[in-house]
């Protein structure tokens, strides 16, 4: 490996970190929507595979670090993955310490990254021999994941019963689009459905605003009062191991290990399940919330890195939600990459290690520093100048555009339909994790039902 290539990788990592630090702060930027297209452009532009991987790793680490900021200050998920953290971040916001959430989450992210990089490399070499078997049963694995997560919810029977109807809704729309020629028969609409599930709760609420009776009954509020405690700026480079206490480091590390091991599951589902389990016994609400968000952020980061690296190194097919979504261009971007000729085939183990290490170190160094040092300034700015309405509008606009992009005008209606159903299911306690797993398993599930 020559010096020029290393320089190119470092440059790519810096570009990824800077770009996705900014994008991560913007609320509601879905990981798939913001990572996949940019990666695709780089692939098609003919960059070296190893440079693309460095960029991608740096981008996901930076994105995962900063997407905690909108959660902490506004309760808007900075991405799909941070949706489960909203509830806990809200507790901290209510107690006037939103900047504490940011620091705890960012530190959790760093621990997740540190654990995930070496573990993913080891795990990948362990499961490489099983590649064929795992690839053959990916659908069953996704379906099993949906059932498992459904059993973990409070209303498990409701969650279980909702699996098949929800799968039918998804496949029904896809077959409709194929039937009327909205998309070619080899195109499976995915990203916009995914987003539709994500904003389901908001869409449901917007629909309710259109209902006069419901609108009249809604509780009315004054302006929201927010008090933020000033804290002194730390000197020197922030240390994630000091921001988190010992117990938080413990649960965060455990959650991160689990995140790596369950790379093939929906990270959102695992995040909800583990985050709640690990924090439920803590009494003090602030401590419980801090414990939950640090371990959740560690887990999402770890799951993201392993979800990218393990399928890439061991399998060569996108068999994890991360690989199917944000990382899809690394597996399949014709004519440059195909499932028979992608990063899996082009890079050696040492290439993977070097790219991952350079990407993650540069992203942590840059983004963690900015996030911790300036979280309070960022908070103050957003609270004072950014109206919640604009954030909701931004999210809504992006969903409209991606719906249109996937399958034309008709899909805007389709995505609204999915959002409405997903929003009701969500309100009833069928969490995102179950819904995402169903989204992945739907084609197989429906074909099995037909027999």
């Amino acid at each position, binding site marked *: 490996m020559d010096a020029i290539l290393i320089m190119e990788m470092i440059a790519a990592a810096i570009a990824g970190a800077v770009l996705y630090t900014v994008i991560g702060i*913007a609320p509601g930027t879905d990981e798939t929507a913001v990572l996949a*297209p940019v990666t*695709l*452009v780089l692939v098609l532009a003919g960059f070296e595979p190893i440079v693309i991987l460095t960029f991608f790793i740096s981008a996901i680490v930076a994105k995962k670090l900063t997407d905690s900021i909108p959660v902490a200050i*506004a*309760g*808007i998920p900075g991405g799909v993955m941070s949706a489960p953290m*909203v509830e806990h971040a*809200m507790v901290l916001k*209510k107690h*006037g310490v939103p900047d504490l959430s940011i620091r705890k989450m960012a530190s959790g992210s760093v621990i997740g990254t540190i654990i995930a990089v070496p573990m993913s490399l080891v795990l990948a070499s362990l499961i490489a021999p099983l590649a064929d078997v795992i690839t053959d049963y990916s659908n069953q694995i996704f379906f099993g994941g949906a059932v498992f997560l459904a059993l973990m919810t409070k209303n498990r029977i409701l969650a279980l019963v909702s699996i098949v109807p929800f799968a039918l809704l998804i496949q029904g729309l896809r077959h409709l689009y194929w039937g009327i020629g909205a998309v070619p028969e080899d195109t499976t609409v995915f990203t916009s459905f995914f987003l539709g599930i994500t904003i389901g*709760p*908001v869409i449901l*609420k*917007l629909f309710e*605003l259109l209902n006069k009776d419901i*609108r009249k009954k*809604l*509780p*009315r*509020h*004054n*302006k*929201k*009062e*927010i*008090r*933020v*405690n*000033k*804290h*002194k700026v730390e000197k020197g480079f922030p240390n994630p191991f000091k921001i988190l206490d010992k117990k938080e480091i413990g649960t965060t590390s455990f959650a991160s290990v689990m995140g790596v091991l369950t790379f093939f599951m929906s990270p959102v589902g695992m995040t909800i399940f583990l985050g709640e389990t690990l924090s439920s016994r803590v009494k003090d609400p602030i401590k419980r919330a801090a414990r939950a968000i640090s371990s959740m952020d560690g887990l999402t980061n770890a799951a993201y890195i392993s979800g990218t690296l393990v399928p890439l190194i061991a399998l060569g097919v996108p068999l994890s939600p991360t690989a199917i979504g944000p990382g899809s261009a690394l597996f399949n971007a014709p004519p440059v990459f195909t499932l028979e000729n992608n990063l899996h085939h082009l890079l050696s183990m040492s290439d993977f290690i070097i790219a991952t290490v350079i990407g993650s170190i540069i992203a942590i160094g840059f983004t963690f520093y900015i996030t911790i040092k300036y979280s309070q300034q960022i908070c*103050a700015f957003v*609270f*004072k*100048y*950014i*109206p*919640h*309405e*604009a*954030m*909701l*509008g*931004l999210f*809504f*606009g*992006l969903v*409209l*555009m991606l719906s*249109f*992009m996937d399958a034309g005008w008709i899909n805007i209606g389709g995505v609204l339909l999915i959002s409405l159903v997903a929003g009701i299911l969500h309100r009833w306690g069928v969490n995102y994790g179950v819904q995402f797993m169903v989204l992945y398993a739907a084609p197989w599930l429906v074909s099995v039902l037909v027999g």
Partner: protein
Amino acid sequence: MVNDSGPSSEKNEVKENVEIWEDVVNIKDLLISLIISSITTLGGYLIAPDTPPKPLIFGLIGAIIGFIISSVIIKPKRTFQMMDEEK
């Protein structure tokens, strides 16, 4: 977040905001923002040259423009106070 600390001390202010996704919004302002963002984002996508990934990039720029316009014309429904740490 069920109630907002009882009857508010702020005088003469009509309670007219509703809570969506853990923050309060004014329904009319929300409507304005949704319309602006939809037009700029989808508009950006539609006017872009039809060679991928340009439509997506134009759309994202449109989304940012819509966000900025909404932020300028709509006031946040929050009162913000910085307090010195007690200990």
